[in-house]
């Protein structure tokens, strides 16, 4: 097997700035209040991922999931430790990045694809698939500023799921889009998974993690709280509905997941 991602003892520190202007800072100094503070968003995180594994990254809000994704995708650099990856990274992390309201759907597809690392030939070749998946019809050649928010999101998603990558990071999968589109997205994610692409999937939805992933990593206040089997991981987080009522969204998610 080929190692796909190595995260070795990674820590990332952020600074909290309590005051904005020089005046406020001076006032705080006089009153001997704290001007800024530091906190560890990630603290000594280590794990390795084999090529083709699909990881469900779970954890409560503020546990460091997004920071970890940004380190793996290369947007941020760790303060301590090392992150290593193999091959091209894409995913539902930069959906719609570089979109310009005044430009048409077609122009924006080329732009977004280039940002995700696709070449011109590659985009030409896949353009029809992307357009079909986004399914915006004759709006394709009008400025995206006129799109409905759903159409806008669909366009971004379609580009992301068509990049020929080795590591696929999915952060905001079920956040937008109508039901049929969500279904289509999850089906496409399954395809991505089956083609041997390493999948890094962030979700609060236990149902889709169960369907999608074969390993769960749970982050707790910047540390790895659990790393291993999916069922166990969900239990670890108490996301299996054992201690409270399952909410409606969870039901919908279960349903969607079972549709695939």
């Amino acid at each position: 097997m080929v190692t796909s991602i190595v995260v070795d003892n990674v820590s990332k520190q952020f600074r909290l700035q309590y005051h904005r202007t020089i005046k406020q800072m001076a006032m705080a100094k006089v009153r001997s209040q704290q001007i800024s503070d530091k906190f560890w968003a990630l603290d000594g995180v280590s794990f390795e991922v084999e090529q083709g594994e699909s990881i469900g990254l779970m954890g409560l809000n503020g546990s460091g999931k997004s920071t970890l994704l940004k380190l793996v995708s290369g947007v941020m650099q760790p303060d301590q430790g090392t992150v290593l990856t193999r091959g091209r990274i894409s995913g539902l992390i930069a959906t719609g990045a570089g979109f310009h309201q005044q430009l048409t759907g077609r122009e924006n597809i080329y732009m977004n694809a280039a940002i995700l690392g696709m070449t011109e030939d590659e985009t030409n070749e896949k353009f029809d698939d992307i357009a079909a998946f986004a399914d915006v019809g004759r709006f394709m050649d009008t400025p995206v500023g006129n799109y409905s928010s759903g159409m806008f999101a669909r366009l971004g998603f379609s580009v992301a799921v068509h990049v020929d990558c080795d590591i696929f990071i999915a952060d905001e999968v079920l956040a937008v889009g109508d039901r049929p589109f969500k279904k289509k997205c999850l089906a496409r994610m399954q395809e991505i998974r089956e083609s041997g692409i390493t999948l890094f999937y962030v979700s609060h939805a236990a149902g889709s993690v169960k369907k999608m992933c074969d390993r769960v990593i749970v982050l707790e206040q910047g540390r790895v709280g659990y790393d291993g089997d999916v069922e166990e991981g969900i239990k670890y987080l108490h996301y299996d509905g054992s201690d409270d009522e399952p909410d409606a969204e969870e039901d919908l998610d279960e349903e969607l997941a079972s549709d695939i």
Partner: protein
Amino acid sequence: MAERVSVRHDLERIPLTSPSSTSGLLEVFRRRYLLRLLVRREIQARYAGSTFGLAWSYINPAIRFATFYVVFGLILGRGLNQENFAIHLFAGMVIVHFFTETVTSGTRSLISNRAVVQKMAVPREMFPVASMLVSLYHTIPQLVILTIVCLATGWSPDAEGFAAAFLGFLIILVLGTALGLLFAAANVLFRDFGRIVQTFMNMVPFTTPMMYPFVLVADLGVQFGEIWPRLYMLNPVAEAVLLIQRGFWVTTVSNKEEELGQAFPDDLWSRGFIMFGACLVLLVVGQLVFSRLEKTVPERL
């Protein structure tokens, strides 16, 4: 089922690398395609929704020249005692505009592209460089207008002049990119920086010999001491303005030989090459500083 990705991409041969590592400006050239799209997006977006579109790029400088001609050529004409002063001013304006546009849009470039910078690992040098190229593109219509008015006044261009103008553009291109890189990163860490830069950019046109003839600069020395004209000439933008005037303005005047002697420093060329070298050094420094600062850019945006 399709072949597995690891086989198709022959992943065993691809090394594990840090996902955020880039080789700076070189990486920008490696991703020319993305750079091209970024530049095209800015150019298209500028006139999106306007009916005249790109024509505005010609209308604005044409009207600016007409104003110069009326004010400096007709109203103040005799007092300035300088032939074709409108061209003298306009030629300098082309290059000064290129400089200020490059630096101000470069300074803003990381912040205005924050959606991309925060989400994808692209070489971030891309954005100041794209700003420079967009500004360069917008000088083309101005050069067209400049050429037309030169031809209309009776132009006898020479090869040395073209070479001088070209060197002037090279100096500003490198200098603008270097400052764009430095200021873009600084502006993320310290937001007031953009305003400071803007203030200084408003001064730049007055620090170059285009609104007044070069002879006045030499007079500075007589009046206040030898040090002042020397300091004045340390400004690369002033040098670039002189170089473009060598290419366009001086080749339209009737007493060209006389003006060549008094409207330019004797060491115009050697100064130009030294300035160019200094700007290249500044570019290297800019890249080094940028690489250091950019590590904290995504979280400070």
